[in-house]
């Protein structure tokens, strides 16, 4: 279980000279200064664990400042990974092993370490100066304040400098490898394979043999330190998870989003034009796609958010897949453009990697508070499709779905990811090509009424045709002014406007017939239905499973389609006595469910820039079930 102490089977095997304990799941967190390379150490630990065969879920947590003053609380960067021998859905509530590279990292992370948990500290960093920067009045390594934990003091800086001494690096260069020393120690502690990381070092530093050698030595020195030190009497093993057979790779949500966009482009045999302006936490999608030029991806770094959406719309008008990504502040700027795509009924994919707002808010911290903006943030009656992925790997599936709906229904589609999904990683089973959705789109090549082309003539689904410039005989004009039904000519006719407003709304509403029903995980009826959306899936699923094991009558329904909602949503809500809606906002979905289905949904709100803990949701379920 992710959030409880791992069950320990005292097998006390002898391995590498020290006994081995088997664990089901472990949560490790690396924490240090933002210059200490903690994200890198975490990512390497994740790769090694995934390749070893564990299930994994990760939570990077880093400051917005690239280099806040060294040693300060503001500069602490952390990376948490949960790895297990069974299916897991969350990065874990409580940390079992914390690596703290300095006093500030200790101070900001110690509260999440379970009582009795393993605390590995770089004792070299606990100098009076750094203790003072972290706000410690006395040294916690000496004043007894850490006695609830198993504290392992390792002079990492000294040991690491010793390990690379022969390479004649400057102390500064030598210290840059110390994250690999810590990583090596953790590799020994949890029997991780070193080879994937050694290979990464060889490839990454191929042009700099001294750095390659230094990092290699640091990693191995950390590993060997674990083997020999008296401080660590045992090490641990987490067996491989019974994962469905297949070929896997690790993906973050942003990686999966980029992969899905390219896959959709290849499936549709249409170029992807991806225009984006740099913004945390969405920029990585642009970085990924810019690397994928051999798949024909056309990327632009636009001059601003407005331009990025304009370029995507222009590309769509030209028959390509037009997509753009941003975060909440960027959505504020793009809504005008999105409304143009609503009015002109052009396909458009808008990715919103949500972060804590309002305004600039907390750029690197997660939140789900853009749902109402996506649905209602534009002037006029402006219906759009909104989908939300549930996990990093689900970003792949749902972004393809976003493209499918956009081109099939000539509509903008919002894809609401979030900062947690974007940076969190999990294993992804590479799909068989035959399992991918069949995407197709047709463009008209001849007039559609009496020898003329009517741009707003609709089919039975109320969708207009996607006539692409360059096609002879279909020359037509579109724009943001209200248009006459069928002809598309500018019209200020009152009844025509009303008809068009209804047509646009009905077209999007009709999509309900083309999306899957929402699945209920658990009993089909009962006391409590927990309804979530987007990136909270893993935490809610874990909490609901745990609640059922406690004997409670609880089910979970998770919405991946927010507009339109699946057709069975209302019916499901009515089969439960209580509805609980946990959200990382002040109750957006709850508001919608209450308005749409007249149910007395109860909210559970968290707006701390962090994902829910399983226990937070479990406690609320227990409280509701009793009522």
């Amino acid at each position: 279980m992710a959030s409880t102490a791992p069950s320990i089977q005292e097998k006390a095997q002898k391995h590498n000279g020290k006994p081995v304990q088997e664990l089901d799941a472990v949560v490790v967190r690396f924490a240090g200064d933002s210059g200490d390379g903690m994200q890198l150490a975490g990512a390497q630990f994740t790769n090694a664990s995934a390749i070893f065969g564990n299930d994994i879920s990760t939570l990077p947590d880093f400051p917005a400042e690239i280099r806040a003053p060294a040693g300060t609380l503001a500069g602490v960067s952390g990376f948490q990974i949960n790895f297990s021998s069974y299916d897991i859905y969350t990065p874990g509530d409580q940390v079992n092993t914390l690596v703290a590279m300095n006093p500030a990292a200790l101070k900001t992370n110690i509260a999440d370490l379970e009582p009795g948990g393993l605390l590995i500290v770089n004792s070299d960093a606990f100098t009076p100066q750094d203790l003072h920067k972290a706000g410690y009045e006395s040294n916690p390594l000496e004043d007894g304040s850490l006695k609830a934990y198993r504290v392992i003091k390792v002079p990492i800086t000294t040991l690491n400098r010793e390990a690379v001494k022969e390479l004649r690096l400057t102390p500064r260069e030598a210290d840059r490898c110390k994250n690999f020393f810590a990583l090596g120690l953790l590799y020994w502690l949890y029997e991780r394979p070193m080879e994937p990381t050694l290979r990464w070092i060889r490839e990454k530093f191929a042009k700099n043999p001294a750095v390659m050698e230094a990092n290699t030595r640091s990693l191995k020195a950390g590993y060997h330190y674990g083997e020999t030190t008296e401080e660590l009497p045992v090490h641990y093993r987490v067996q491989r998870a019974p994962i469905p057979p297949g070929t896997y790779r690790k993906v973050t949500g942003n990686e999966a989003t980029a992969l899905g966009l390219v896959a959709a482009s290849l499936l549709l045999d249409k170029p992807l034009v991806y225009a984006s302006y740099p913004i945390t936490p969405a920029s990585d999608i642009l970085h990924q796609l810019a690397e994928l030029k051999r798949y024909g991806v056309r990327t632009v770094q636009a001059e601003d958010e407005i331009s990025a959406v304009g370029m995507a719309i222009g590309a769509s008008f030209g028959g390509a897949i037009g997509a753009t990504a941003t975060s909440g502040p960027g959505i504020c700027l793009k809504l005008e453009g999105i409304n143009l795509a609503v009015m002109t009924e052009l396909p458009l994919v808008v990715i919103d990697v949500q972060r804590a707002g309002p305004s600039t808010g907390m750029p690197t911290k997660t939140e789900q508070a853009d749902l109402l903006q996506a649905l209602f943030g534009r002037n006029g009656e402006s219906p759009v499709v909104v989908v939300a992925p549930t996990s990093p790997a689900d970003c792949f599936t749902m972004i393809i779905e976003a493209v499918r709906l956009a081109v099939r229904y000539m509509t903008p589609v919002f894809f609401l990811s979030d900062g947690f999904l974007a940076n969190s990683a999990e294993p992804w089973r590479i799909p068989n090509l035959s399992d991918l959705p069949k995407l197709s789109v047709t463009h008209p090549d001849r007039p559609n009424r009496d020898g003329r082309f009517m741009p707003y003539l609709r089919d039975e689904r109320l969708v207009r045709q996607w006539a692409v410039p360059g096609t002879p005989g279909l020359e037509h004009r579109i724009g943001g002014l209200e248009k006459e039904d069928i002809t598309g000519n500018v019209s200020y006719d009152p009844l025509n406007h009303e008809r068009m407003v209804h047509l646009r709304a009905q077209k999007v509403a009709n999509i309900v017939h083309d999306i899957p029903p929402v699945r209920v995980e658990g009993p089909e009826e009962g006391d409590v239905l927990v309804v979530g959306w987007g990136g909270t899936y893993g935490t809610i699923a874990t909490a609901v499973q745990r609640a059922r094991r406690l004997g409670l009558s609880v089910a979970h329904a998770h919405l991946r389609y927010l507009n339109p909602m699946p057709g069975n949503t209302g019916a499901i809500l009515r089969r439960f006595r209580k509805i609980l809606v946990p959200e990382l906002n002040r109750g957006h979905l709850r508001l919608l469910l209450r308005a749409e289905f007249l149910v007395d949904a109860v909210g559970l709100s968290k707006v701390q820039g962090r994902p829910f803990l399983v226990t937070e949701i479990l406690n609320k379920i227990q409280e509701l079930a009793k009522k």
Partner: protein
Amino acid sequence: MATMTTTLPTLTPKEFASDQEVRWCPGCGDYSILAQMKKVLASLGIPREKLVFISGIGCSSRFPYYLNTYGFHTIHGRAPTIATGLKLARPDLSVWVITGDGDGLSIGGNHLIHALRRNVDIKILLFNNEIYGLTKGQYSPTSRIGTRTKSSPLGSIDNPVKPLSIALAAEATFVARTVDVDINHLTEVLHRAAVHRGAAFVEIYQNCKIFNDGVFEYASDKSIKADNVLYLEHGKPLIFGKDRNKGIRLNGTHLEVVTLGSGITADDLLIHDEKSEDPSLAFMLSRMVHPEFPEVLGVLRAVQRSTYEELVLKQIEDVIKVKGRGTLQDLFRSEDTWVVEGPRSQMQDAST
């Protein structure tokens, strides 16, 4: 793509008219620009379906509705972004942006600069009437200081921008100016813009009959304009005036108006070089303002540089040449993979 041997149907200007009634005010300069545009289109030999007119918001931005080509009347100031996206999707199309002084230099100033510096192969026609017409007469970013409007009853105090200076500062590869009623010159400049490969920026002095009538009279009235404008010709000295006896000379770092004769000859005058890679002299020309100077008309700058869409596609082609065109299988396996067989997994080194 049509080849040279394909016989293209010859279209007349009339055949570029759409079925929509033109709704500009009587006497508006836009009528003339539309009429000359149709003539130019008919002369280009580009099939109608390959032409796209994209506009923002304002009186001028109604332009696409009146042409029987593809058209997109977009949102305020954003037309260059939509044109850029379209060119990235379809580099084969001839894409024109129709904008005005408010649309292109106020709300859309940023997009204009960036479309120009990227050298997207689009033709941007900025109808400058120094006023907001569609919103019924407020001063614009090009209005001269002291312009009295509903929003500046005591006269505007905002220093105006010079559209050509902005285009040159953005390193536009084609920069020109012409006048709505100067039919032959307008046609010639539009044609040159059309055949330029890369971003072309054309400022058109356009009279707003209702809110700013006569603001360009000095440059359009046949009886006086010869002394107030200077027609640029590549490789020729800068001479102007009714009697062709005045010229522009470079004095140190400044331009000055001189009268020919009494020791000053055409050899002393600045020779116009539209092909100069250095836009500095063109920039000085863009700063010549009536009445101190004649205002220049014609092509200030016409240089060649790769277009943006060419470069985007070239990077893709180059990568494909080296690595081969990517398939879905390549895409999915672009990072380390491992195989899970039944209940046990096995490490696999994907790079071997």
